[in-house]
């Protein structure tokens, strides 16, 4: 019984302690329950977000870049399918062996192989590595047929910009290339590998509109970054389809016509609405090379070429306009009240102070009035006239015709040229204006500089009497055909009149008519003989060197005998048809020699072709309002 009592005592003690222990454990379990409540109720939103962040990755879907079309809808810049071979390590097994097998089917250089091996070792096993891009159809099919021997190798399809017109459109369109560090704006689209942006021309100017908006793809990834599935997909908006004013066929013609010259440029415009129908500059380059990626050598060859193939000389080449400037002097004189019939005697030179200013014709033209002055391009007539008018009046007239400042075409890199005045010289050279400089300027030499685009604009304004401004873009392609009867041509620009009396312009136009259609005109040999298509024009030959007294005494050296760099620039501005002008054209051939011999025949061919094609008379592609285009840069 003693032991039983003792045992009862022990059991009571044990029960006490046991219950204490049980109580403590219950408290601790309650603590766990509290923690569960904290994590799963109070903090659950935070953890839910973290869990979603863990598993969901947002991937950008690059939008297809908008195409660029010519005025009739011919594609000038499109997207072509780009086939590339990619390799996934974890399916390939022995990567080197697979690459060996691949190199027997498609061309793989050592550089590619090394890069692939390096990338493969750096990236996770399931990340595809690009082996080669731009496969031909032939290569694609060879890889596909040999699929079983190429584990882990697949063909992927991407898009790459394609310029079917290659170098003949290069200066208008520009090109696209990989995004550089300084192009980054924070837009994640720009950071996508392989993304291209416009680097020049229309591609650069309207990059934002062409780019479109990126779509997004929500994908679920696991802890190792492997994609499990796509959760949600929002398609992006493809870039706008841009419709240019350019006529692709005409552009090709102009480009080819210029090809015969070493370095030349030409602009063809519609004088009614300022549509640039062709804008060419040679030598050119192939913009397709830029998206594939230029080699160091190719790039160096391009930028070190003395003929500057990358420069768009039609808008960025500044030349002394030579005699093509004489119309401005004549109009200034008319405005100053000088009678166009008043004759000036040309003995072949004019003396001012102690200097003698020569006419291009050694024996002189005799008595010439304004009409003849332009027709024969008599320098002395304009020396004399400019002295009466003064440089500032000439400059004011030139400015009115688009010279001396940018005309504002929608391309980057346009140059403004120079139309000097007294103030200009003081501000820029720091010297006062000399009387002789007015004479030099009156024949478009000296300080006067103009671009081919400005010269074309000048011709358009002379022909139309309106402040025509050139444009390259008509607008965004309309999704649907506009209803019948509504104007397919959206908003023909309503240009303000020039505020030059029509009678004055008539004098100039008649003189320009005589230049090419009068047997004694300077460009008679380059006239258009087709009935109703005759052109009116003005030649220009601008010196790039100074002719010394001694040389003049011994007889001026012929251009053909000079080294190319020192030969004269040949220029021609023109419009047609002469009695009902619609098209104008400016041609500049660098160091080409004489305007009448070299530039005028080119302009004739171009204007003849233009009139035969008659792009303004044909129905162009419907567009929506041009204001919707977003410009960049």
């Amino acid at each position, binding site marked *: 019984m003693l*032991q*039983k009592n*003792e*045992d009862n*005592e*022990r*059991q009571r*003690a*044990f*029960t006490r*302690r*046991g*219950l*204490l*222990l*049980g109580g403590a*454990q*219950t408290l*601790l*379990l309650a*603590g*766990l*329950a509290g*923690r*569960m*409540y904290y*994590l*799963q*109720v109070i*903090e*659950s939103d*935070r*953890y*839910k977000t*973290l*869990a*979603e962040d*863990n*598993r969901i990755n947002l991937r950008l879907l690059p939008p297809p870049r908008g195409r660029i079309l010519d005025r009739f809808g011919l594609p000038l810049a499109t997207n072509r399918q780009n086939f590339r071979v990619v390799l996934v390590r974890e399916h390939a097994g022995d990567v080197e062996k697979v690459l060996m097998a691949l190199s027997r089917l498609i061309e793989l250089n050592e550089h590619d192989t090394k890069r692939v091996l390096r990338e493969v070792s750096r990236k996770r096993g399931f990340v595809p590595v690009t082996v080669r891009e731009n496969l031909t159809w032939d290569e694609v099919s060879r890889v596909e047929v040999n699929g079983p021997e190429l584990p882990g190798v697949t063909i992927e399809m991407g898009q790459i910009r394609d310029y079917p017109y290659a170098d003949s459109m290069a200066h208008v369109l520009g090109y696209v290339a990989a995004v550089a560090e300084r192009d980054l704006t924070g837009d994640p689209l720009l950071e996508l590998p392989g993304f291209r942006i416009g680097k020049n021309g229309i591609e650069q100017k309207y990059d934002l509109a062409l780019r479109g908006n990126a779509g997004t793809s929500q994908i*679920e*990834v*696991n*802890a*190792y970054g492997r994609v*499990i599935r796509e959760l949600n997909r929002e398609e992006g908006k493809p870039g706008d389809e841009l419709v240019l004013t350019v006529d692709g066929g005409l552009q090709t013609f102009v480009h080819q016509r210029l090809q015969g010259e070493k370095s030349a440029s030409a602009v063809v415009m519609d004088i009614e609405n300022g549509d640039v129908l062709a804008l060419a500059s040679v030598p050119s380059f192939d913009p397709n090379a830029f998206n594939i990626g230029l080699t160091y050598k190719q790039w160096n060859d391009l930028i070190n070429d003395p003929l500057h193939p990358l420069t768009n000389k039609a808008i960025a080449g500044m030349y002394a306009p030579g005699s093509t400037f004489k119309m401005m002097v004549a109009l200034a004189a008319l405005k100053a009240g000088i009678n166009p019939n008043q004759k000036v005697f040309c003995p072949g030179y004019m003396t001012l102070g102690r200097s003698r200013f020569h006419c291009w014709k050694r024996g002189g033209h005799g008595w010439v009035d304004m009409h003849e002055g332009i027709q024969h391009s008599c320098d002395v007539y304009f020396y004399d006239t400019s002295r009466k008018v003064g440089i500032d009046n000439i400059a004011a007239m030139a400015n009115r015709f688009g010279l001396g400042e940018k005309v504002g075409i929608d391309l980057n890199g346009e140059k403004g040229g120079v139309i000097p005045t007294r103030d200009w010289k003081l501000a820029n050279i720091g010297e006062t204006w000399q009387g002789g400089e007015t004479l030099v300027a009156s024949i478009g030499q000296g300080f006067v500089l103009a671009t081919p685009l400005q010269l074309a604009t000048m011709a358009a304004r002379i022909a139309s009497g309106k402040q025509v401004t050139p444009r390259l873009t008509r607008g965004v392609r309309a999704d649907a055909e506009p209803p019948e009867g509504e104007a397919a041509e959206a908003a023909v620009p309503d240009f303000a009149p020039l505020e030059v009396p029509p009678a004055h312009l008539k004098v100039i136009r008649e003189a320009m008519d005589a230049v090419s259609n009068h047997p004694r005109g300077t460009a008679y040999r380059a006239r258009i003989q087709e009935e109703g298509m005759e052109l009116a024009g003005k030649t220009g030959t601008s010196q790039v060197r100074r002719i010394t007294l001694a040389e003049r005494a011994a007889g001026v050296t012929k251009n053909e005998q000079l080294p190319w760099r020192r030969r004269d620039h040949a220029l021609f501005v023109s419009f047609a048809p002469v009695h009902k002008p619609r098209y104008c054209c400016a041609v500049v051939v660098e160091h080409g020699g004489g305007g009448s011999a070299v530039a005028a025949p080119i302009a004739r061919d171009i204007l003849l072709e233009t009139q035969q094609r008659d792009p303004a008379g044909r129905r162009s592609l419907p567009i929506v309002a041009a204001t919707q285009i977003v410009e960049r840069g």
Partner: protein
Amino acid sequence: MAIDIFLSRRNPELTLRQKFWQLNWGMVLLLCLIAGVGFAMLYSAANGSMTPWASRQMIRFGLGLVLMFTVALIDIRFWFRYAYLIYFAAFALLVAVEVMGTIGMGAQRWIDLGFIRLQPSEMMKVALVLALARYFHGVASEDIGRPTYLILPIMLAVAPAGLVLKQPDLGTAGMLLLAAGAVFFAAGVRWWKFALVIVAGLGAIPIGWQFLHDYQKARVMTFLNPENDPLGAGYHSLQAMIAFGSGAVTGKGFMQGTQSHLNFLPEKQTDFIFTMLAEEFGLVGSLGLLGLYFLVLAYGLAISLRARNQFARVLALGLTTNLFLYVFINMAMVMGMFPVVGVPLPLVSYGGTVLLTVMIAMGLIMSCYIHRDIRISRRGTAEV
């Protein structure tokens, strides 16, 4: 038999058939429910597949049930008699792994018997409680107060704990000591002695820190500040908490857990399986499982208090505490309240030894219930 006189009038000697009906069927049901939760989670962890985990766990649980019933039906006096022997056998195995154990997970913990990888440290959790129960059964209440009587049980606890710590397995060593401490407490060791040990233990932390492995130090540091190093050592802890918290009240649905199925969650079929449950079934699931464990623990405590001999009382309480420690440490660990020490969730986590150990422990607790009225003399064998 070396068993003593039976003072009770109710004859505690039962036939096997009677014993069978005495089994705690409620407890068996609870264990099956918990194991069932485990099967479901293992099925989900394998992305809806019985292989490789769920089916094997089921087979093991079946074996475990058989083992549990066998252990429960064996007379408690048998366990009393062989308590020390079992302890020494487990201790010998523990020494054996130390000597010739295979390397697994960077720690020497297993003896590969071919069909099963024996983890002696798990066996020791049961063996230690058996030995201590036997020891405290023989000590009179007045002797408990004497320090000399505590030397042997402390040795019994510290020796295996030291070996396990050397493996190194911080979690198991801690569990052995805590379970021993609970047994000491229940056996009536004075409060102040515990206070002394706790103070001494706290003082020893800086010294003990020196002996920890770098990864153990990192785990403790990570526990103290998990978001400090989210992609390094803190990654597991943080991802576990994200999985847990994102389950919210009702969870993401069976097999819909993103953290677990996309492999953000580490060790989802073993130590972190509770997180997966919490992610897929939310607060409802996690509290539910906690409730099931609470019922099992309460059942164990009740059995302990109901027993009429000190051996059964201490044994049942010690083993119940053991189960509590598994549950508490695992849950606290996956919820970021405790360093990651590698303690599985009993009956739910995938793993053979732990499952069998827990089933044996439950069998012993049931044996304590079936043989609750059997009295054993204080000196056990010596009386007869």
